[in-house]
């Protein structure tokens, strides 16, 4: 893509243990600028543990890890300011308005009042939500909420945004519109790190990493993974990996 050579995420031998349980076992991978990187695995495979470390919310047991150029051991506060995060479960405050949410998160991410004003106008224009500025989030349809939550998660123009199952339960048209936003974001060189259970959604990613029992068991483009496992779609790849049929 662009001439940036430093990866946005650089993980070497990352391990996290809870007592005798190894949640992440020597993970090593890189994610490049502007890449859409899919992080897959069954429930309990260790995805959430890894994402929490990458977001600066939890310390690893060992390993060398940088996110957006900052070290997770010593610079977790800088990491938090330079990433965006959105999940299906928690995204926006429902009992305040669209604009109040923008102001709140803009403030948390350290934007000035002027920046917040400018970017809010831009954001609402792009989503066609100018007339909903003073609407309570609770009264917005789910699809709009998710698009808005995503746009707010990148309002401070971070190097990377983490999306935790962003489109669970939404209708297929809204889901496609959401993915349009993701592509647009990646084009502007913000890296998108997605976890999802939708295997068809995995096909949208530039590259996929599949976790099983704390380890990375496969990492490649969707096309090459399908070739390697002789599978029609990613669902088949995922099931073959989980059942260790290779």
């Amino acid at each position, binding site marked *: 893509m662009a001439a940036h050579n430093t990866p946005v995420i650089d993980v070497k031998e990352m391990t996290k243990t809870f007592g005798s349980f190894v949640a992440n076992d020597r993970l090593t991978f890189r994610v490049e600028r502007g890449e859409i990187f899919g992080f897959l695995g069954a429930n309990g495979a260790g995805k959430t543990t890894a994402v929490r470390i990458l977001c600066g919310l939890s310390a690893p047991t060992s390993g060398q890890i940088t996110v957006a150029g900052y070290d997770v051991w010593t610079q977790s506060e800088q990491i938090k300011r330079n990433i965006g995060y959105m999940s299906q479960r928690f995204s926006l405050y429902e009992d305040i308005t669209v604009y109040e949410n923008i102001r709140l998160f803009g403030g948390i991410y350290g934007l000035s009042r002027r920046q917040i004003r400018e970017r809010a106008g831009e954001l609402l224009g792009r989503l066609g939500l100018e007339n909903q500025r003073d609407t309570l989030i609770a009264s917005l349809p789910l699809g709009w909420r998710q698009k808005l939550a995503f746009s707010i998660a990148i309002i401070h123009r971070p190097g990377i945004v983490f999306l935790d199952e962003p489109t669970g339960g939404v*209708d297929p048209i809204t889901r496609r519109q959401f993915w349009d936003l993701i592509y647009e974001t990646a084009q502007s060189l913000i890296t998108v790190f997605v976890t999802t259970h939708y295997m068809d959604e995995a096909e949208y990613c530039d590259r996929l990493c599949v976790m099983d029992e704390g380890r990375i068991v496969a990492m490649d483009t969707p096309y090459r993974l399908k070739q390697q496992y002789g599978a029609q779609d990613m669902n088949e790849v995922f099931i073959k990996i989980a059942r260790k049929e290779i």
Partner: protein
Amino acid sequence: MEFLEVIHVSRSFGPVNALLEISFTVHRGELFGLIGPDGAGKTTLFRIVASLLLPDEGKVLLKGHDVAKDYKQVRRIIGYMPGRFSLYHDLTVEENLSFYATVFGTSLKESAAYVHRVYSPLIPFRKRLAGKLSGGMKQKLALSCALIHRPEFLVLDEPTTGVDAVSRKEFWEMLEELRDMGITILISTPYMDEAGLCDRVALIDKGKLLQTGSPSEIVRTFPAKLYVIRGENLYSLLGRLRKSPEVKYAFMFGREIHLVFRREPDDPARWLGPLTGTVDGTFSIDPLEPGMEDCFVELMGKKEPVDGEENV
């Protein structure tokens, strides 16, 4: 007499029309799927079918019984698994199951043959608290409890939501076996790819039924001709396609663009050429057999403009 008849059912909550004039039938022994996104009305409909909520208008007949009036008979016939995990976290696996058995005046022993397929993987964990089970195991326990009174009819509200692909596959395999035992199953799901696992489906969105039929019927009646465009840098191409007057709509589907024409060109490949002009790479355009999601997108588009833009 049909096994289940849903007849012109409407239900609103204040100003929100959760269900509008819903009608469909489920045949005996069928695995029937209600497919739709969050907020479509699936849970409301299932609560009405399970006699837990009254419709504003219309009625539901189960083996000829009006579920609103004959709810006592109906509840013996139905095994209902609600969407939220509704078992007792502080009871063990076995205690939960005996509790449900007692409520229905039966026992685990009497129903053993019936629940065996679903319950047997849980036997090694029978002394474990239900709250300490993994997602997949909780799901199996909830299904075991729904089966404990040997119902003829299972009503399962989004049992596979948030569950990983492997556990989902196992769950569907279990449902097929239950169907083959003669149990009629009504299941809801937001995952379009699960529609293909049902004998028949009803597609629902915003309280309205879009279409009912077998998965192959629904795909066969796709009213337009669908094309797929493959190549690199598809996202750059997408914007141009949407601006073209010939295009009705175009969406990314994974690593492909799915497209329906408003006016179909004589030679789609020749038509595509100039549009891809300055975009790097080579592109192909071919007719494509639609999938369930394509059908859903097309059916939703009948009700509102679909152009990839916001429609307020």
